[in-house]
């Protein structure tokens, strides 16, 4: 454990809103992850150009065809082109992942700031968050979807709700330690208004951990969306999403395993890339965590 002693002393710089990033520290894995993710994002954006077929066009004469020049990865039980469906599936996953990260941060950040600052509010808010965290996120999402019906919007809400407590806890813990700092006390002492103290001095502190947490939320949301679709509680079955493709492929698994393995592979690469980028961001933004390996 000699390494923990040789901690690099960082120069004192004024914290800007975006923490500076040491680009040379990005390793091979993170580069590969960025490339994979970029491909998936482009795939989602330019889906109509990349897809070779209409992803929802059924053709009973072409059921369960093997991979060929006409159908790059073969067809599913309804004669739809698997490759085109996977390409379009990227859209759902990316919307849900990015959407859940943004919404949960947008709701969790103010709640966490308030909880960290006001004692009474803290006690109430944290009890509510503890209760929410006791509900397994999949079950919570399932309950929301089964009540409100299957649509992209309900799935997004269902996935975001269980992530909010994690953001609130994170922001609160940052605020609790930052508010003891001399510069925050000084700001309060010279009479800065509370919103100004929060915005100028506390929010910038939460930014680095929130970026890291945001990437993990994104990965976890994509995973949960796929699980919900797989279980039949996701976006409507007519929408091509990776979970839906696998869900429909289950019945034909022994006959045609590629219906599960191709979307499963793309899904795994997507989540893995986001997780790796999250780990890289964490190491770059908070070198202290690197030695401990961190926790999610």
């Amino acid at each position: 454990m000699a390494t923990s002693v040789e901690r690099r002393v960082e120069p004192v710089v004024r914290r800007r809103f975006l923490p500076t990033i040491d680009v040379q520290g990005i390793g091979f894995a993170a580069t590969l992850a960025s490339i994979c993710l970029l491909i998936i994002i482009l795939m989602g954006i330019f889906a109509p150009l990349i897809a070779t077929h209409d992803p929802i066009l059924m053709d009973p004469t072409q059921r369960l065809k093997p991979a060929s020049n006409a159908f790059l990865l073969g067809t599913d039980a309804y004669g739809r082109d698997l490759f085109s469906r996977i390409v379009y599936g990227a859209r759902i996953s990316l919307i849900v992942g990015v959407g859940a990260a943004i919404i949960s941060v947008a709701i969790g950040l103010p709640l966490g700031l308030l909880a960290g600052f006001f004692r009474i509010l803290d006690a109430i808010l944290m009890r509510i968050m503890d209760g929410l965290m006791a509900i397994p996120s999949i079950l919570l999402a399932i309950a929301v979807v089964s009540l409100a019906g299957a649509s992209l919007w309900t799935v997004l809400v269902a996935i975001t709700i269980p992530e909010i407590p994690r953001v609130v806890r994170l922001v609160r813990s940052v605020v609790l330690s930052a508010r003891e700092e001399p510069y925050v006390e000084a700001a309060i002492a010279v009479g800065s208004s509370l919103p100004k103290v929060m915005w100028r001095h506390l929010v910038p502190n939460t930014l680095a951990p929130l970026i890291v947490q945001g990437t993990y939320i994104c990965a976890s949301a994509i995973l949960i969306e796929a699980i919900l679709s797989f279980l039949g509680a996701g976006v409507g079955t007519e929408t091509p999403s990776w979970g839906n493709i696998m869900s429909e492929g289950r019945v034909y698994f022994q006959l045609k395993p590629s219906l599960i393995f191709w979307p499963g592979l793309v899904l795994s690469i997507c989540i893995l890339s986001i997780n790796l980028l999250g780990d890289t961001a964490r190491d770059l933004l908070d070198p202290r965590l690197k030695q401990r390996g961190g926790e999610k």
Partner: protein
Amino acid sequence: MFGYFLRRILAAIPVMAVVALFVFLLLRLTPGDPAAIIAGDMATPEQLERIRVTLGLHQPIHVQFITWVQRLLSGDFGVSLLSNKPVTTLISQRLEPTISLALLTIFLTIIISVPMGVLAAWRHGSWIDNMVMSASVLGFSIPVFVIGYILIQIFALNLGLLPVQGFTSISKGVVPFLERAILPALTLASIYIALIARMTRAAMLDVLGEDYVRTARAKGLDEKIVLFRHALRNAAVPILTVIGTGFALMISGVVVTESVFNIPGLGRLTVDAILARDYPVIQGLILFTSGIYVLINLLIDLSYAFLDPRIRY
């Protein structure tokens, strides 16, 4: 110590109250008529009226909540809309497969992930460490059902070693039980192993830097004894905490794993309830699993006092 136990037990009550309130409000705050949501599109007016009466929907909302909680406390979780059986009966019928699968999973997780984490911390920065950390990122990233299908493909279809799907009760013998339960348990354990291996490594890294570890090594103790008796015992508290919080991950995994492997447990019950939009069952399952989660974490909190004699309350 008794005071601490009492305080921890009391602290679990507001958590469960929030869970109950949330589940209660979820149905009432969803736009639309709750009875119509529950009954589905094909419901007749009589069915709607029956649901309104059983849920007490014509009463003011605070009265509804009080009667609902009173029923919960007396063990009445409502009646399934699909089979008309009490939700508690449905849950208790499905408990055995899920509990035996969960116990096997936790056993596998601990015997695999703790040594992984200890090794990684012991050889910190080496290729072993890198392998363990990479395996852990993979475990977090590959969805449970994909791992399940990969295992089925390799061990059941290609090698023909194990049955593809299904469940055999442990009362019919340990070997038949293990034959069918080992693949689902490994599937379920994948994400849990990733989590606990990471946490074990982190906790061990902290402990291995302590003075008493250096002293133990300096006086020439066997490295195994240093690692497992001096270090691991002191790292046990954070590891145990994560085993508790990771339990929520496992519940989510159970739902998926049981439908991949066709196991008639709580997970199958959940999926059947989703497909039939059987809200009373989903509600009962949420309350039940959240209760188990709170209970397990309570027990873990209480066990710290025994695990670590330094902790005094």
